[in-house]
């Protein structure tokens, strides 16, 4: 089997008495969408924070392209190829949509220390940013103030910024949260295309989207992965039905 792009090995994290991550090992293979589902508070965002370096695990390792990145900062992991989107949009709200996308393009370029050139006149940067906005369907909103975007559009912008980074792996925390049906469907289409560029570790509550997209699914409950498998395997899994899917399986 091909080597995974991203892997966690026995990650554990404790908040006081709460085991937020309990010996989590998972892999993300080239070309796949690996979805992580689980009830609220299961520890999905905590896992992502450890993968992306905003939270240090108590034990365990994170590997990106076969390289141990556990000791690296968020910034170094981004440079190494992690493209993250946040569950709660983290955007420069006073800036325009284009400026937010430009920021990603700047990061991808590896520095922002140019002090005299106008960022907006840099055609390379601008092209990268506009292309990403076009792909998520925000090209017409490029000059809007980000705070004037709808909730769903902000989620799209999150994805656009990750796109500008041209990452080796996407790590997305509920990119469809709070989106309408139409928005979700569009995002589903986009993610389906994106997996050809880089595999996606996808945390998502929207089951229609998950079942439509995921090559593999892991179910996280109380910080533990209780099952990993294909959509049909997970649907058939008794533990999962009991613990989580219960009513709608």
């Amino acid at each position, binding site marked *: 089997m091909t080597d995974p792009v991203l892997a966690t090995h026995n990650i554990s994290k404790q908040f006081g008495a709460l085991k937020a991550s309990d010996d989590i090992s998972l892999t993300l293979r080239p070309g796949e969408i690996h979805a992580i589902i689980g009830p609220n508070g299961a520890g999905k965002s905590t896992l992502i924070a450890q993968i992306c370096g905003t939270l240090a695990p108590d034990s365990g390792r994170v590997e990106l392209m076969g390289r141990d990145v556990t000791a690296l900062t968020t910034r170094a992991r*981004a440079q190494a190829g992690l493209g993250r989107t946040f569950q709660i949009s983290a955007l420069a709200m006073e800036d325009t949509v284009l400026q937010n996308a430009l*920021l990603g393009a700047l990061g991808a370029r590896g520095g922002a220390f140019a002090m005299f050139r106008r960022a907006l006149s840099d055609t390379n940067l601008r092209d990268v940013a506009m292309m990403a906005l076009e792909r998520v369907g925000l090209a017409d909103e490029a000059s809007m103030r980000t705070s004037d975007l709808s909730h769903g559009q902000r989620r799209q912008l999150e994805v656009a910024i990750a796109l500008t980074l041209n990452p080796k792996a996407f790590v997305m925390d509920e990119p469809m949260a709070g989106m309408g049906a139409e928005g979700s469907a569009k995002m589903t289409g986009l993610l389906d295309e994106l997996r050809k560029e880089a595999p996606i570790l996808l945390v998502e509550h929207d089951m229609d989207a998950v079942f439509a997209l995921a090559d593999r699914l892991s179910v996280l409950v109380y910080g533990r992965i209780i099952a990993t498998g294909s959509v049909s395997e997970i649907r058939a899994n008794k533990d999962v039905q009991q613990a989580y899917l219960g009513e709608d399986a």
Partner: protein
Amino acid sequence: MKRETLINAALLLGLLLVPLWAYVTDEPFTITLATKVAILALAGVGLNIALGLGGLVSLGHAAFFGIGGYAMGILASHAQSYTPLMESPFLIEGTKSMPVIWVTAILASALAALVIGTLSLRTSGVYFIMITLAFGQMLFFFAISWPAYGGEDGLSIYVRNGFPGMNTLDPIQFFALCFALLLAALWFSHRLANAPFGLALNAARQSPARVETVGLSPFHLRLIAFIISGAITGLAGALFADLNRFVSPNMLSWQTSGEIMIFIILGGVGRLCGPVAGAALFIALEHFLGGLSEFWHIWLGLLLLLVVLFARGGLIGVLAGRQVAHD
């Protein structure tokens, strides 16, 4: 953007025309007032890069203002007493040359900002405010207890320093120098705000997590901004000391830090010409109200309160409306 540009132009034109008019009507004191506005505005332009663009609430910018002032005072006092600053390991002599003094002031305050910034930018919020304040106070007390350069009494120089090809003793010519430096700093800060650096710094203020996630370092961005900011305020300090032909620990006091911040708040935080509007308003109030009553600060306080409560964009905000994201 259009409207704010127009207001900025009008403001700067006003700052140019007032002393020119005073020159024609032979009122040197008014020229001095305008010079003071230009210099204090320059100090504000410096702080505005840290505060407005970077969101760094520094209550220690008097440190840089004072370092610039003492750079002038120390160099000029050695020059006027014909004693070198030091003889070994190599000879450093004093100077009365403004360009040399300016460069020294910029370098010294940039170095101080590097040290203060490296230590204080690890923190944020109230801690950052307190640490920058503490550094400022340290320098203040150091200056007081340093008898070689006047201690509490400060340092006077007999004649204003010189600039090649100009007569700096002529108030209008000294004003021209200060005004030119102000324009240069404004131009620089405008370029900076619209450059990739400004974009990233501005984003780091609003969402540091985002900036890290694209692989940039908020700490490095802020540190560089803090150094640039300190250097510009330091240059203003050198000019201010030259204007008064006097430097004292007062320039390093926390009240000075507060006043520089007041210019920005009055004029508009993060607005290009906010410090110009703020400094002009401040000096006008000091001049007119100060003439009526010793307690003019009460009125300043009231005005500040009104601005903070009802006009967060300051004077520029009231005139030009909500800030348009840089283009």
